[in-house]
């Protein structure tokens, strides 16, 4: 009797009392439960420890510079004067460039895959795009250095300077010396790296839009494109936003490819063609050379900043994607 009740423990309320517990213990259920629970708890412990270590090891820099760390434009290891402003700027600019290029491209591809392409072709292309997402970032960096940078230096850069550079307002972004390395190059490489994430998440979300929505739009005389753009995409917009946030989080934290093509200069320049640095690329470049304690501590504080930014973005992205997949994304 007791055995039957305990084996169905998840369906009937578990029997109270030490005897029932001992019985489950003998059967191994409680041991397995506790064992797996321990390992689940390890994940929480690791994540807390990660935050703790970043916080403690950046103590020196936090007390020395305070909030001024965020807007100080100087990064001078020789005089132990550190400010994160150039790197925060670089991180935001490269990610912005990446999103400007990647979002239209990714969304268009996702629309093609979910609305137009036959299921078989769509699956094959999605598989190839997943492979693209699996390419290590150092490989992107390698291609960036030897393919994209020369192309920017000899062709794209001069072209931009001579055309868009002459325009009022946005021309500022495309003036000045052109080295091939810089914000724009890093942004382009980042765009290629995050496009697969936008596509695969957006495609999933678009596929959850009910078929009736499309049929209703078509029945009212909408063209295929009108039904897609005015009905299907708005329905899925929350999830698409989620995919963009996810891509943004990846772009902000991306290290190797950016380090290899951004030119590594702690400077804030208006021109996208100028060399710069991001938070991640600075850590990658300087961490092993950091001689003083304050230097190291400042680099770790950069890591803390990066962690917090991506932490918040990832959280938001998850909430948005889950909200759409539960059907909460319908236009108001």
């Amino acid at each position, binding site marked *: 009797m007791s055995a039957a009740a305990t*084996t169905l423990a998840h369906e009937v309320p578990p029997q109270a009392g030490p005897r029932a517990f001992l019985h489950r213990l003998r*059967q191994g259920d409680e041991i*397995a*439960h506790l*064992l*797996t*629970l321990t*390992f*689940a708890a*390890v*994940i*929480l412990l*690791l*994540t807390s420890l990660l935050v703790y*270590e970043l916080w403690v*090891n950046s103590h020196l820099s936090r007390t020395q510079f305070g909030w001024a760390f965020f807007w100080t434009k100087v990064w001078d290891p020789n005089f132990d004067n550190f400010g994160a402003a150039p790197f925060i700027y670089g991180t935001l600019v490269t990610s912005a460039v990446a999103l400007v290029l990647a979002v*239209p*491209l*990714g969304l*268009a*591809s996702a629309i*093609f*895959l979910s*609305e*137009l*392409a036959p299921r078989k072709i769509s699956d094959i*292309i999605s598989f190839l*795009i997943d*492979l*693209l997402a*699996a*390419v*290590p*970032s*150092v*490989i992107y*960096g*390698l*291609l960036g250095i*030897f393919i994209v940078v020369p192309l920017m230096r000899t062709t794209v850069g001069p072209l931009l300077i001579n055309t868009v550079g002459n325009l009022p307002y946005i021309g500022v972004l495309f003036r000045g010396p052109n080295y091939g390395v810089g914000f724009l190059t890093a942004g382009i490489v980042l765009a290629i790296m995050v496009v697969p994430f936008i*596509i695969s998440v957006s495609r999933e979300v678009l596929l959850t839009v009910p078929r009736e929505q499309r049929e209703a739009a078509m029945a009212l005389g909408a*063209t295929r*494109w*009108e039904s897609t753009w005015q009905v299907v995409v708005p329905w899925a917009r929350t999830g698409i936003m989620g995919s963009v946030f996810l891509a943004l989080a990846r772009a902000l*934290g991306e*290290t*190797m490819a950016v380090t290899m093509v951004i030119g590594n200069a702690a400077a804030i320049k208006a021109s996208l063609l100028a060399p710069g640095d991001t938070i*991640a690329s600075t*850590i*990658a470049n300087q*961490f092993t050379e950091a001689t003083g304690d304050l230097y190291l501590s400042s*680099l770790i504080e950069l*890591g803390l900043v*990066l*962690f917090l930014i*991506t*932490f918040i973005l*990832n*959280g938001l992205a*998850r909430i948005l994607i889950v909200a759409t997949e539960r059907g909460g994304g319908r236009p108001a």
Partner: protein
Amino acid sequence: MIALRMFWRKSLNYVMLTLTGVAAFAVVSVLFLILGYLLWNGGTSLSWNFFTQLPKPVGETGGGMANAIVGSLKLLFLAAVMGLPVGLLAGVYLAEFGGKTFSFVVRYTTDLLNGVPSIVIGIFAYSLVVLPVKHFSALAGGVALGIMVIPITVRSTEEFLRAVPGNMREAAMALGASRWKTIATVVLPAASGGILTGMLLALARVAGETAPLLFTAFGNRFWSQGWGQPIASLPVMIYTYAVAPYDDWHRQAWAAGLVLLGLVLLSNLGARFILARSKAV
């Protein structure tokens, strides 16, 4: 007037739909461009020496990356030993035992850990392992990669365990098996194909990671002297060689890139193959 409006709407329809197709094929063609460039540049630089010799001193041409290939394998071994069990058991907890609130917290934390930039994981492993003993080690690199393996394994394990039909569990329990016996002998074997795929994909992902190794495993131009010493790895070698000013190093970086990409893509394809077969059974 209406005809003109209709013409405009139809034209817009065709133009935009064509553009979406162009976008999709442009993205896919990037994959083939990458493969093509690596095969072209890496293939010509790849030789038997690459797999068997140590790097030559600066200025001398030739040599290979045998130590980096072995080093990468060692680091992956460490990552697998440390990360996979945690990921597997935590995944089993979430799918089979988890309550409501605690599971939600674990799941959420796992996703966040998955999104932590790899360079930050590197700092974490640095402060955990390198800082106390004051020098770089293979162990530190293994810890960094191991941490990255965990969240990917957790989520794939949970997903595939949940896909096992509930009536298989009920059948085992109806025959008198205890809960853990059901999980160990019925549910896990049924999901093993998927779980294995997830593990392979997790390892394939960290195999290409460079950032967390820069200041944990560091690098080494010779054979590693043990787990407590710096060790070479393929991704870090590609980085160092690509940014160095020597043509011969650039050639070797391409060769190493080809080998690394080959490994990563092959394990991805292998994982899909396992999954397809286990689904067919």
